[in-house]
């Protein structure tokens, strides 16, 4: 059999399922009309989104306006906006100690500091790593693997490993004491603990963003760089005038994904510091978790109200991203 004959045979075989369902689509088109038919195609996805996204949001809304520690909505009395009022009961939003739920507002304050710092660090490190690993360096494949490896680890494993390194009698202190330096309280000082929270989460996740950026870098045509080289542009100028503009759509996606992931940060910090020292590294998600699941009795209503507020903030981020990406496309 010639190559051409083989490929047409394969093509005919591949089109068999399509031909088998063709009568059904024709029938559906006749019955539903051209306008309604696309909805039929969308139906499976819509069902999944409805079941796993919209229904949970609706349940969350129900929980946020009902009380008691019962799990079944039918057993929870309606309390209106009481949970939202409890969270919003604040003398001065800039001073959490004046708020009824001071820990929630401390967590909001921490998140407002953590998210921009961690996102900038994450995108910055991922970009630098991607650029370095896009060059023809020795053992490039190995280093790509090394930087991506932490992404595959469980967040709990990541946190416990770093805890082992950073604790009072940990590896880092053992190393610095070899050089005669005093041991430091890496996780017992609020500022240092905040720094390490950012460091550990960046270490754990930057490989994921690095891969996306690496793909973006590889899609930039090499002739653009060759032209810049012929123009004797400096590496710095090439970076700002060639790489960044051509990478902007990918950077935007990475930036938005990094912001969303940063807002949702929980596991690593919960295991590493438990939100401490005091409440120095407590983020909003931890507050929601502790209120809804670690406290006794469990205050599902207050946790649901907090999570809806968080969801609302994330929705705003997403809308801003959509707006910016539309602007880019235009």
């Amino acid at each position, binding site marked *: 059999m010639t190559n051409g004959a083989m490929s047409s045979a394969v093509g005919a075989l591949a089109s068999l399922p399509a031909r088998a369902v063709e009568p059904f689509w024709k029938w559906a088109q006749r019955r539903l009309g051209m306008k309604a038919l696309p909805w039929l195609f969308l139906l499976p996805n819509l069902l999944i989104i409805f079941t796993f996204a919209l229904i949970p949001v609706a349940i969350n809304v129900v929980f946020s306006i009902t009380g008691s520690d019962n799990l079944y909505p039918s057993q929870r009395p309606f309390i209106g906006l009481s949970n939202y009022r409890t969270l919003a009961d604040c003398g001065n939003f800039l001073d959490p100690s004046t708020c009824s739920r*001071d820990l929630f507002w401390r967590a909001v304050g921490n998140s407002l500091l953590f998210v921009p710092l961690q996102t900038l660090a994450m995108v910055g490190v991922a970009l630098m790593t991607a650029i370095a690993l896009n060059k023809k360096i020795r053992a490039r494949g190995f280093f790509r693997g090394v930087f991506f490896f932490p992404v595959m680890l469980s967040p709990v494993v990541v946190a416990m490993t770093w805890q082992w390194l950073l604790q009072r009698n940990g590896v880092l202190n053992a190393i610095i004491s070899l050089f005669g330096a005093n041991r430091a309280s890496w996780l017992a000082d609020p500022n240092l603990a905040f720094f390490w929270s950012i460091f550990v989460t960046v270490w754990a996740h930057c490989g994921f963003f690095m891969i996306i950026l690496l793909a973006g870098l590889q899609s930039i045509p090499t002739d653009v760089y060759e032209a810049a080289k012929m123009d004797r542009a400096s590496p710095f100028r090439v970076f700002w005038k060639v790489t960044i503009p051509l990478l902007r759509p990918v950077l935007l996606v990475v930036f938005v994904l990094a912001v969303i992931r940063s807002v949702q940060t929980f596991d690593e910090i919960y295991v590493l510091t438990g939100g401490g020292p005091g409440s120095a590294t407590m983020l909003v998600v931890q507050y929601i978790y502790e209120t809804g699941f670690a*406290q006794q009795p469990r205050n599902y209503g207050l946790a649901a109200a907090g999570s809806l507020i968080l969801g609302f903030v994330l929705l705003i981020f997403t809308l801003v991203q959509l707006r910016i990406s539309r602007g880019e496309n235009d």
Partner: protein
Amino acid sequence: MRPQKLLSQAALTTSLVTLLVGAAFAQEITLQADPEVRIRPLVEKFNAESPDIKVKLEDISYQTTVESLPIQLASGQGPDMAVVTDLGGLSKYYLDVGPYVDKAYFETQFGQSLAWLRGSQGGDAINGVPITLTVNGAFANATLFEQAGVELPEEGATWEDWAQASKAVADATGLDFAMEIDRSGHRFASLAISYGAELVDEQGNPVVDEGLRQAIETFAQWHRDGIMPMDLWGAIGGSTHRDNFADFINAKVPFYFSGSWKLSPIDKDIGGLFEWRAVATPCGPSSCTAMPGGNALVGWKHTRQPEAVAKFLEFAAQEENLEYYLSTAVYLPTASSLVEKGIDYQGAPASVNEAMALFTQQIPKMAPAAHQFQGWAYQRAMMNAMTTRISQVLNNELDVDTALKRIKEDVELAISAGK
């Protein structure tokens, strides 16, 4: 084929099928427990003696017992049985095995502990078997005290006495810190009650008083003076339970406050590396109280095999089985007959037996407030609030007055959420 042969073959097949079906349909019930409870030998004994019911033991961490299990229960899911420590807080999920067991025996053996299991539900239900009694308690590294030339404080010594003596030992032996206490509201409650804190009143309302204030102030001062490290209470946030017992096992701290459940790990991990002692609970201005605690083996309401669950609970409650379990797991008994008789911890070295005897001596010294707090349905809410707010005080996020106000508000909010 001859009819006789046919008949014998049929009989053989029938008995084989019956045997196989019987084995396949032996009732299986699940039990979840923290491996530190060391209940496996008792389960194996039951499985060996009971052909009809098999108990499948699933190991889960303490944190899972405290955080995830209650959510499973709230949704009507979960194992048939579990070993729990939040005795009163889960009372609405317990299976009343009263209809299946000898109630009078349970009442005689476990009296007061059964009331803890009833929590805010009250009544006369038999909600489980309070298998172990635990007692908060202190451990001292006698070798370090000896090396430092410091006398071990005698029974009746105060918390301050221990703080000063341990500090002297730490200074003399070049250790970083003198004392450590598990990051646990339950452990802090011992200190607080010995300083006169009431924690809960007769009506079940949270109490923040002068005793609690003094305890928090003293505790914070120990951290500021470098007597205690910030690693545990200072470095961790929220209500997370944490211990740093490895410091004691590695001879990095001369005094550690934890509890009787640590005896078996101590014996195993320290061995003969240094001489350790369980010491009498330090005294505060009000009392020399430890906190009672313990584990209860309970069945859950949602089980589809209540009779099988009751059978295992009844088996575990029998004096000889309980004694077998306690002696191998090295725990104090709650059963009155075993309290009277005493337990021979077979195989345990003399140091462990001495320590158990000392912990047993602490039981009558427990303040009434300690018993009341232990039986309070909202005990965990108070413990979580104390842990969270004390850590904030240590990090200068709150002053002690504000912390007290916040503790009360947190517990009141928790109580209103639980209604």
